[in-house]
Every structure is written in structure tokens, then in C-alpha cells.
């Protein structure tokens, strides 16, 4: 299985994933990033703490960024619609 690195761009700095994870393909790396984004939003809701704007940078085993996953992509559609109406 190929190794992917899931770095985090929190808007001000890049938090490095130093170890990487063995994942089947890019689709499962995306799924991992989206799952993590949901966990971050959930924690932010529960603690009332802001997580700031940010995104995941998916890099391949050469550490080249091949895909970006925005944290907002993990928000439930109903919530996005509700926020747009405001």
C-alpha cells in the first residue's frame, strides 16, 4: 500500500504529518482527511472553540502535495444551506 502524508494548513502555518499512513489509494486518503475534518468540527462544536479556517494537504510518498481537502467540505449540507440563508 502506498504511503500518504496528511499535512494540515491551519491558515497561518503548516503542521507536518511526519510519519504518514499506509492507505489503499488517494480516495481513501481523502476519506481519512474528511473523517478527521468531521472530528475537528465535532470537537469545536462540543468545546465552543474555534478551529479557524484550514485545509488538509494530501501528499504522496515523495511528499508532493497532490490534493487539498478543505475543512468546510466536511460540513453537513443542511448546515451549509442554513448558514447561506442567514
Amino acid at each position: 500500500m502506498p504511503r500518504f502524508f496528511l499535512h494540515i494548513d491551519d491558515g497561518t502555518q503548516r503542521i507536518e504529518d511526519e510519519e504518514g499512513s499506509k492507505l489503499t489509494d488517494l480516495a481513501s486518503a481523502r476519506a481519512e482527511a474528511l473523517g478527521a475534518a468531521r472530528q475537528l468540527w465535532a470537537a469545536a462544536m462540543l468545546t465552543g472553540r474555534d478551529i479557524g479556517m484550514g485545509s488538509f494537504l494530501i501528499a504522496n510518498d515523495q511528499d508532493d502535495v497532490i490534493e487539498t481537502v478543505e475543512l468546510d467540505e466536511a460540513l453537513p449540507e443542511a448546515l451549509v444551506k442554513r448558514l447561506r440563508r442567514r
Partner: protein
Amino acid sequence: MAFNNRLLRALSPADQDVLRPHLRWSELERGTVFVSPDQPITHVWFPESGLSSIIAMAGDDQGIEVGLAGRDGLVGMPLVLDANRTPHRIFMQVAGVGHSIEGDLFRTLLDDHASIRKLLLRYVQAYSTQTTYTALSNAMHTVEERLARWLLMSHDRQDDDEIPLTHDFLALMLGVRRPSVTIALHSLEGLGFIKATRGLIVVRKREELEEFAGAGYGVPEAEYERLIGQLR
């Protein structure tokens, strides 16, 4: 030979002499599987160093760590409790060394020596307190607080400040995705409590880490010391 395993150490010299001829010294490499779900448990292991993980399985390849045992305890607890299998998976997470004893023989020795059984039952009570506080922590605490707790628990079970834990394992410990581990480590590092490098976490400010971990850390450790003796 003096024991580093806290349970063997807590036994009376006479009880140590009962076990000693049957203990086999073994290297416990990272990844060694001691117990597989619903398979007969063949031996009991008393780690002298390293860390073993008890995993509650959710299907064949997913699970969450529910318990930790190193030099404070033993692996193969169901045999103390008159059961010979468990749905859990138990494997070595940080390499170490330890003693093993054959399962049937171990059970016979417990039948014949009530004082050994009593000490091990008190350990089961201490371990069960640990798992109840894991439940508390999983329900009430943030990933950062839970990470702080697991790092303290790992730190308690070794002599130096360098804990060789991979991010993959921390994700399993905490039941979170890998990037959540990266972020939690980054936060604790930002506070100056730890230094995280590839595959290695160095504890820098132990007292601050304890304070940060809150109610999840401290009670099970005090209970262990009340029932067994010195933990660290």
C-alpha cells in the same frame, strides 16, 4: 534475580520462589500478538519493560485501545479470572522484555497459593479502575486531554522520558483519525509539555501534563498504589 515487574515484585519472597522456576524469559518485540479474539490463551506474560495494548474489536480490522499493561501488570488476565479466552486482542505496542508462564500450570499454581491469587485479583481491580477512567475520558475529554492521559500512563510504565509511540498507534489509542493525532500532538508541543518527532515523544513537563489531563489521570494510579504498591 530482582524483578522489575511490579506484581512479581509485590509478591512475598516465598511466593516469588513458587513462580520463579516456571518463568521463561522472553523478548517481547513490537507487534507480538499475545491474545487473539476468542482463541484459547496459552500463557500469562509479566512484562519487565515495554507496553502491551488491550484492544476492543469493532469487526475484524478496527478497534480502540481499552487498556494498557506494562511492568505494572500482566497479559492474560482472563486466566486469573477462570476464563480461557476473551473477545479482545492483546499485542505488544512498545518492545520490551518479560517472563512468560504456561497457562494451565499458572492456573494450578493459583489454586494452590491463595496469596498469589489475591494479589493478582487486586491487580484486576486496579486494571478495571483504569478502564472505567478510560470510559470517563472518552466521554468527557477532548482529544488533547486524552492524549495527555495516555502519554502519562505510558510514561509511568517506563524509566526514561522518551516514549516510542507511532502516530498510527496513538490514533488507535484515542479512537481518532490520524490527522487528529497530528493536531493534538502539535497542541501539546505548542504548550511545551512534550516534544514529538517521528515515532518518538519526549515528555518535557510532566507536572503540567498531569494538570492538563485533568480528572482522567490520577485516580486509577492512586488506586493501583493502594492495592499493589509503587507504580512508577
